[in-house]
């Protein structure tokens, strides 16, 4: 489910609110030509920098599935003169934190450091990016950790459900398989593969940077050049669009557990579609609104069939889906699925009421400023906006686009998007009264 959650989070960034004059974004270009968006916040002496490389684990070379994920795990495992432990000690001495994560569409680096030792922190992080050692012992150790994760995911009902859905939906596209790779595919990865994986994804032609904190534009320019100018200019080509190949139906994956987990979905809507905001508001009413959503009301509050149910718009770089997830006892999951289908149908045929529309809009416009609640969250928003190709003044204008959504817009997009017959449910557990279709 990581893919789904991440993408959902990215989508939420696309909303706006009026009171953001306080967050003044500056477009900074370093002497070396590297761009970043910056919000200065000098009241606390530290800075957060968020870096994204577009492409992420989808850029694995043929036959090397899992290489970019393993490489990402090794970025903090030794660089320059420092082995894994010495690198960690150096970072702790500075009280900095560095995060290295990879997703289907991006590789993410997060850094938090104090003003008092900024230069040392940046020098250390730079060494992780361009002087990575990829020592064989570290490679073997981290590969052992990933082996353990792969085995754990194979026993986790939620993971099994989402990976089965992806495999069925996306054919031979990278989205169809786990970014972890398989036990077999990572067993043969070498040090050389790690250098190649790094150079495929960590290049300057796919780079986005957001920074927030106790740093001036000039200081940030220096940091950007110190940190990133030695990266290669280009990397691997981005992958092709994925074809969504899954038809409506049910796939049961037998698994001995008292509660079934169902992941469901069908094709979705592009982030750039003129009706994306209408779809976004619709999804808020349907299943993204927590206790206010129709599905939560029908499945949990009225019938007590689940602890939680939610739906997501998942606009990825090369495919779009609408997805949802619910967990319910083996005896009741079939009923929960019937309710989901009925609600899907109701949304397609009836759209939303005036009151639902107004509540969703009030929530979405009001909730946005609450996201700007710290240097880290703001830096994340800045880098997310750039990765989506949004303009720098987007935040101030975007509220109007939510407000502009009408009941007719929602009805139109619901009719076009929501298709109960096309919904495919992957159910992991021992569900009573459910069998796989076809």
């Amino acid at each position, binding site marked *: 489910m990581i893919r789904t959650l991440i993408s959902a989070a990215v989508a939420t960034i696309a909303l706006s609110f009026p009171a953001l004059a306080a967050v003044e974004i500056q477009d900074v270009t370093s002497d070396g030509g590297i761009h970043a968006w910056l919000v200065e916040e000098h009241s606390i002496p*530290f800075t957060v920098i968020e870096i994204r490389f577009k492409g992420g684990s989808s850029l694995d070379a043929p036959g090397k599935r899992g290489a970019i994920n393993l490489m990402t795990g090794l970025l903090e495992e030794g660089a320059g003169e420092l082995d894994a*432990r010495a690198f960690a000690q150096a970072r702790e001495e500075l*009280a900095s934190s560095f995060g290295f994560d990879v997703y289907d569409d991006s590789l993410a680096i997060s850094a938090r450091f*104090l003003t008092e030792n900024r230069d040392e922190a940046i020098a250390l992080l730079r060494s992780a990016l361009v002087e990575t050692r990829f020592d064989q012992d570290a490679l073997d150790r981290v590969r052992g950790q990933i082996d353990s994760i792969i085995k754990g995911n194979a*026993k986790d009902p939620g993971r099994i459900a989402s990976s089965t859905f992806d495999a069925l939906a996306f054919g031979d596209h990278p989205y169809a398989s786990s970014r972890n790779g398989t036990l077999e595919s990572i067993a043969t990865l070498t040090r050389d593969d790690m250098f190649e994986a790094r150079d495929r994804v960590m290049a300057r032609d796919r780079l986005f940077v957001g920074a927030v904190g106790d740093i001036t534009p000039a200081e940030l320019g220096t940091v950007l050049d110190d940190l990133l100018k030695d990266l290669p200019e280009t990397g691997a080509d981005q992958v092709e669009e994925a074809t969504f190949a899954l038809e409506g139906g049910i796939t049961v994956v037998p698994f*001995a557990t008292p509660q079934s987990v169902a992941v469901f979905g069908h094709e979705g809507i592009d982030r750039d579609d003129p009706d994306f905001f209408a779809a976004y508001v619709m999804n808020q009413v349907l299943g993204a609104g927590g206790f206010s959503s129709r599905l939560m009301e029908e499945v949990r509050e009225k019938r*007590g069939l689940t602890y939680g149910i939610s739906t997501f718009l998942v606009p990825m770089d090369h495919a779009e889906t609408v997805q949802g997830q619910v967990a319910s006892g083996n005896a009741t999951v079939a009923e929960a699925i019937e309710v989901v289908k009925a609600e899907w149908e109701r949304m397609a045929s009836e759209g939303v009421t005036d009151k639902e529309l107004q509540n969703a809009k009030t929530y979405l416009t*009001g909730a946005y400023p609450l996201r700007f609640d710290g240097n880290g969250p703001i830096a994340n928003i800045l880098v997310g906006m750039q990765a989506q190709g949004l303009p720098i003044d987007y935040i101030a204008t975007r509220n109007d686009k939510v407000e502009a959504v009408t009941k007719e817009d929602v009805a139109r997009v619901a009719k076009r998007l929501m298709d109960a017959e096309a919904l495919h449910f992957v159910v992991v557990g021992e569900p009573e009264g459910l069998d796989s279709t076809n």
Partner: protein
Amino acid sequence: MHRVLAVFAFTVFGAFSSVSAEENTTTYTLDNGMEVLVLEDHRAPVVVQMVWYRAGAADEPPGVSGIAHFLEHLLFKGTDTLAPGELSKTVAANGGSDNAFTSWDYTAYFQRVAADRLELMMRMESDRMRNLRLGEEDIATERQVILEERNQRTDSDPGSLFGEQRRAAQYLNHPYGIPVIGWRHEMEQLSLQDALTFYERYYAPNNAILIVAGDVDPEEVKALADTYYGPLAPTEGLEPRKRPQEPPQLSERRMTYSDPRVSQPYVVRSYLAPQRKTGDQSDAASLVMLASLLGGSATTSVLAEKLQFEEQTALYTSAFYDGTSLDETSFGLVIVPNEGVTLEDAEAALDNAVAEFIETGVDAEQFARIKTQIRAGEIYARDDVESAARRYGTALTTGLTVQDVQDWSGDLMAVTEEDVIDAAKQIFQEKNAVTGWLTRQETKKMAQEVTQ
């Protein structure tokens, strides 16, 4: 590479969760006994309201395990002026988010909204403190929801079931041995009257703490609190919280939990340990430093160095200790063995590493690095007033004061290398150990027996 091991999320709670001395706090008490704490942060027009009750799962009467948590769910049903679900819907319609959480020592409710909506939040939160209206139908449906919650969080996860069993073995007499969610057979019987009895006794202004954090003026908060919480009647005769305490442990306890859904076996060993006490947090501070030294970092800790890097017996190691607890807490060690290493050998390697640590003493450089991070933690903490609010809430419902919270960072910095070794000698005694093995059960039929 630490994100790998989220599966084994044993953390050193509160290790670096200090607050800054510069933090802007105001406290007062309403006439009906309700305590109020205001934390100011004017950087964004946002406010968090929290109401913390000094009542949690460990305050439940025998036989109704899970009632504190069940009641937490039921608080989202109606009052005379709020329809069922209306509170959350109103929060959402104002752009906010709300939720609640229950632990052994507290139950807390919170909303996060634009700062100018605080009054509306107070009106609703104060209403449900005393005026909840519940019917039998609410009980039947919501009981199904908490059973599904137990399914999802506990019964579907062998690691959670193992943790539940270990906790039960750790506490012979104290209700900390009972899971917050409740034992299934007791959850199935929870009644309307059980919920109302708990509610009427504990949900009262003289048993609650209001915390308001964010872009607010303390004087205005006080006026609002007087208006909305001030008129609520206190519960008369509320006694100090006295739970059954643990007897001295005289014999090591060992257990094995097997489940076919286990992909990665591991060993957890825990010991009863003292908690933070008001005006006297030094023992707990030593234990936080001990946990940090042994297992606070996936790369540089004593256990990681020895077992993951040198001997390579472990895939992962950790040490955990949460000192913010009303009664005696626990200190634990974790080892996840590498492929091909038995649990028996892993446990022996863990023992050796701890013994060697006590023998050789604290590495001065490692100790200094941890203290550097504590100091830096005070700077970073100023960026997150909501976390600060949670730290105060947890402390104030576990017998600590605002002063204790503000002293905590200093108490951690005052710990010496000798204090740490003394604490280790005190804690790590074989007769006090509760050792659990999580193993993979290969036959399929067994799964039903252990999870139903």
